[in-house]
């Protein structure tokens, strides 16, 4: 409580003057709270060691911080290049329709369980032409759902909607659906994936972005 004299206990003989080197036996005569400070003593062996100790610890601290900070920041710095991933044979995707496909996260861990499976929407426009959309709404990432009857992707979170070609149709999303780069190889549809698309990194350097 504020009525306590702060230096009463700090300078009691019981703690042998530790931590109150500035206090003198005469401090009892001073008003509470006032601590006398002596002029700095000339360098002695004791305070030389103290200074060396501080310097050594600063150095050691800096040394050990390099790997620690490096570890914490590693995911900030590290690059995760997109990888070609197969979505399976072309037969799974009938012309003129939109199908839900899934792939395994190329950067998965063996202990990822079901979270390693990433869904995406595949629209087959004709024999050779596709559009592959990320599942994530461009607003805040909720999973969009395809409605074949109205030919719309709808988002369950804030009512965003997108047309069949991924363009923004309604609601708060700032742009059309995120897309994947794709290719057809040996009768398989492959996409370049491996990232959670966000506005900062939509995950497809080849796409032309259409704003809402």
């Amino acid at each position, binding site marked *: 409580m504020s009525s306590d004299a702060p230096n009463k206990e700090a300078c009691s003989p019981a703690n042998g003057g530790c931590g109150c080197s500035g206090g003198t036996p005469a401090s009892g005569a001073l008003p509470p709270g006032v601590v006398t400070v002596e002029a700095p003593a000339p360098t002695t062996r004791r305070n030389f060691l103290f200074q060396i100790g501080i310097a050594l610890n600063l150095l050691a601290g800096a040394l050990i911080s390099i790997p620690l900070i490096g570890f914490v920041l590693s995911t900030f710095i590290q690059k*995760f290049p997109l990888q070609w991933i197969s979505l399976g044979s072309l037969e799974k995707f009938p012309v003129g329709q939109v199908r839900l496909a899934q792939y395994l*996260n190329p950067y998965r*861990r063996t202990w990822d369980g079901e979270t390693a499976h990433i869904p995406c929407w595949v629209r087959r426009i004709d024999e050779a032409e596709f559009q592959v959309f990320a599942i994530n709404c461009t607003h805040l990432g909720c999973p969009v759902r395809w409605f074949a009857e109205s030919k719309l992707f709808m988002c369950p979170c804030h009512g965003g909607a997108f047309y069949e070609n991924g363009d923004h149709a*309604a609601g708060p999303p700032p742009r059309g659906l995120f897309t994947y780069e794709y290719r057809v190889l040996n009768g398989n549809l492959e996409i370049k994936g491996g990232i*959670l698309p966000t506005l900062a990194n939509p995950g497809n350097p080849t796409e032309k972005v259409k704003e809402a």
Partner: protein
Amino acid sequence: MIANAKKKLIDAGLGVYGWIDDRLHVTEIFEHTAGHHIPKSTSSWFYVFGSATLLCLIIQLVTGTMLALTYVPSGAEAYTTLEYMTYEQPLGWLIRAIHYWGSNFMVAIMILHITQVYLFGAYKYPREITWISGVFLGLITLGLAFTGQVMRFDEDAYWGIGIGASITGRSPVFGAELVQMLLGGPIINSDTLSRFFALHVFVLPGAILAFIALHLRMVLLKGINEWPEPGVLVNRETYDKHYAAIIRREGIPFTPHGIGKDLVAGAIVIIAILGCALIFGPKGPLGPPDPTEIAVHPRPDWAFMWIFAVAALMPEWAEVPAFLIAPPIVIGFLILLPFINNTGEKHWSRRPVAVLSVFAIYLSLGILTWFGITGPWSPPMLAWSGAVTPKDFVVNRTPLELQGLVVFQQKQCRNCHAIDGIGGHRGPDLWNVGDRMTHPQLVRQVIQGGGNMPAYGKNLTPHEVEAVVQYMVSLRPPGNVPALDSAKPAEPPAENRKQAAKEPAHGDRG
């Protein structure tokens, strides 16, 4: 004889106490802490919220440790262990429930505590650091609540992290790197869960204990804020003397004379948490965190509902300011508050701005939370196939109009448009749309969309458009005529009535 023995026993007891006190200095520690003197006026029901929040934290630490005995923070196992705890482990469900309700109570009581100290002017001189450490405690508590939702690693947690990543992805310059750092990699996976686990279980609890130490130390050093009196102004030169005088005049030891109401409130809180846990049980887990299960409706816990609502209601240009610029400004303002407003009146009756701002904040957060819970903008994804159409909106319709109703259902219009309150609320309820829009306006709206509605031009045949619009025109309160084009010269009223009578579908619905 007996008196003698009793005296001996007491002496022995005192001797033991004296020995311990000599070694541990307990009397002295007590006088400086639990036994410190407080103004009598602060032994009030308004002053119990701080200790009650602390009590909640203790419950959280104990139950959290118990949950950690079973919980495995890995993408593959977390959900399985949650199910095991909830459905198989003896009392596991109750520990989960207490931890969940403890967190709800902790956030709620903390909000009361902040409100009380704000309205009582406790942040003013000389308690600036008490307030600032409290701001950090508040932030850490919200951080614990937020990361706690992720520990409940179900579908909501999975997509909730996605929402966090999408918000982070709006940061300028380092957006992509920050998203990666948040997720611990390029995609949500086990690494993501592990870092939220480390935050929830190590970093934030450690930080909260450190800040509580500072907070309580400040309460002891600078004293608890006395009950403010209107007209008694805080002045940096005189306040310390003023406070010392209060303590001299009416100081009582916190323990045992001031703590009574805290104890009663604490017991009520414990019983309330236990009661809620027993009656309502733990929250979730909902479906598994399987990203390919996309039939989900992600929702945050109540403390973050208002953010969910803001995200839905905000125009696009406001997103970056609201998500990334406003929070640092608000937090900065809270930290600077004791310096902006350091002296003067403490009593709420003389601080109308303070009272009004509390009122405004409670009102807006309350309304936003309500919106978040009811979520009128979230389309019910099954309304198109599941929502019933009330009888009045079906009977007396022509075949074409009924065909329009079928198109209306089949094209998922119902997911966003209710009829008489049933269906989605993203768009307007259409029960009286025929009253508001003319036939040509409806055609244009359906084909071109606009005003937050997709354009259906490509997905509807001309016949379907005509059928839907005919049905829309028939949706009017009984007795009303269809909306008229105001640009056309008005027809004589008699004509109007005759025309309305000619159309049997309109006007006589029940």
